[in-house]
């Protein structure tokens, strides 16, 4: 069966696309699926850094497209999982080095060899975006609960729908439950009522993400992390498993004790 090609996009920069790709890819690889992650952010690559594989880059995406190397030469195997690969972007080239048709061709070839192909889309809606969505059949839009990110996500969803990419899912990243309760941050319901696409999952705000990025070990491997767990559940839902969404906020032991004292 051909693999699924999924593009992770957002419009706005810095909302967590690369982190999402790294974590979902890792989570699926942990479950023994064969996964390749393509960094389509030519010129500003960071998927390699987040995965801790930046020292192993010899060839990159543009080299494959230009025929300077075979696909296998550019694919870098992950340190922990033998079934997880990344194809890094070129740092010294620009987005115009690749055309949408070429991306489509590459993704079609990879679909016969892998279960999952993830494309880490660059920010924006120009050439880089068009390249990234060309080969994909599914899109995961990442947004944070702030007006500017949601405005951009809405625009991107409109562009995806216009490009006939109708299988669109949403991830709300960096949700701070305390702020939502206080009314300082938009809630999940507010966001979905505006964007109107099915919710794949909510990832809570977490300091651990920065630490894991610096170390190059995705959070999905950390059992104790709430954000890591959220990514694992998202990966499971993407795979078709029935993992119910966490609508009520998990109350911790400390909160329970506080309520008892103050009631």
């Amino acid at each position, binding site marked *: 069966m051909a693999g699924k090609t999924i593009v992770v996009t957002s419009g706005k920069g810095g909302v967590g696309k690369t982190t999402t790709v790294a974590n979902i890819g890792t989570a699926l690889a942990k479950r023994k699926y064969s996964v390749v992650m393509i960094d389509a952010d030519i010129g500003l690559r960071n998927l390699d850094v987040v995965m801790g594989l930046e020292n192993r880059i010899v060839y990159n995406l543009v080299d494959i497209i230009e025929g300077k190397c075979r696909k296998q030469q550019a694919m870098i195997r992950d340190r922990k999982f033998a079934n997880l690969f990344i194809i890094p972007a070129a740092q010294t080239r620009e987005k115009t080095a690749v055309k949408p048709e070429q991306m489509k061709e590459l993704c079609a070839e990879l679909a016969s060899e892998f279960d999952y192909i993830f494309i880490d889309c660059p920010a924006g809606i120009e050439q880089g975006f068009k390249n990234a969505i060309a080969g994909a059949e599914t899109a995961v839009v990442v947004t944070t609960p702030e007006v500017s990110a949601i405005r951009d996500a809405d*625009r991107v969803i409109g562009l995806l729908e216009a490009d006939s990419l109708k299988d669109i899912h949403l991830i709300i990243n960096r949700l701070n439950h305390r702020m939502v309760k206080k009314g300082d941050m938009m809630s999940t319901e507010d966001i979905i009522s505006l964007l109107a696409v099915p919710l794949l999952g909510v990832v809570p705000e977490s300091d651990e993400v920065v630490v894991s990025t610096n170390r190059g070990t995705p959070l999905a491997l950390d059992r104790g992390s709430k954000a890591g767990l959220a990514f694992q559940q998202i990966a499971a839902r993407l795979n078709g498993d029935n993992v119910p969404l966490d609508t009520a906020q998990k109350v911790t032991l400390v909160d329970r004790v506080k309520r008892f004292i103050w009631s």
Partner: protein
Amino acid sequence: MDSHDGKTEAGNLGDAPPLQIKANRQGFTLVPAPTAPFEALVGYLEKRFSESRDFFRRAEMTLDLRERPLRTDEIALLHRLLVDRGQVRLVEVKLGEDLALVMDRPSERQPFVPRVSPRPRPDHAALVIHNTCRSGMRVVSDTDCVVLGDVNPGAEVIAVGNVIVFGNLRGVAHAGAGGDRSARIWALSIEPSQLRIADLVAVPPRGGKPAAKRYEIAEIQDNLIEVITLKG
């Protein structure tokens, strides 16, 4: 070759345009340079109008001839040129410090109206959009426009007739884009970034979360855009 009141022209005298177009709150003032030949004035005007036709359309202009007197036939030619080619309203010609020729009654300032056919055709069916208008989407209709869905912030719906939204209006809606002030905007809930009817613009009051499911109409009352809520 110098001006009488000592005004200096920016840049090289040889490069200065034969006619300065100055903008102020009432409209534009054309000031021909004191020594510019008449043909240069005409040529310059024609060039400006062909380059930026829409910008000057329906603008009100004053011709300031205090520094550079013109003969009456030259004034008439310029007048025809302004009205026919530029679709400008020449309101006044200043002949001297205290002497001015009033050509047309100046009206209230008319702000720029977007490029939509100004002929409303009530016999034509409305344009119906069958999905939500997402950010960045622009819909233009020369009759009414019905949106079966929301209009998200960043989207624009422009109609010469009415705008009807079967959902939340959160973007920009412009009804009566051709100048029809009796046009209305209807929506299940109006929480727009901007409302425009004909030549009036309204911005919603800041703050406050809007109430749940209601039915609202925006129309012009007393020269202002008012929003009326009808509970469903």
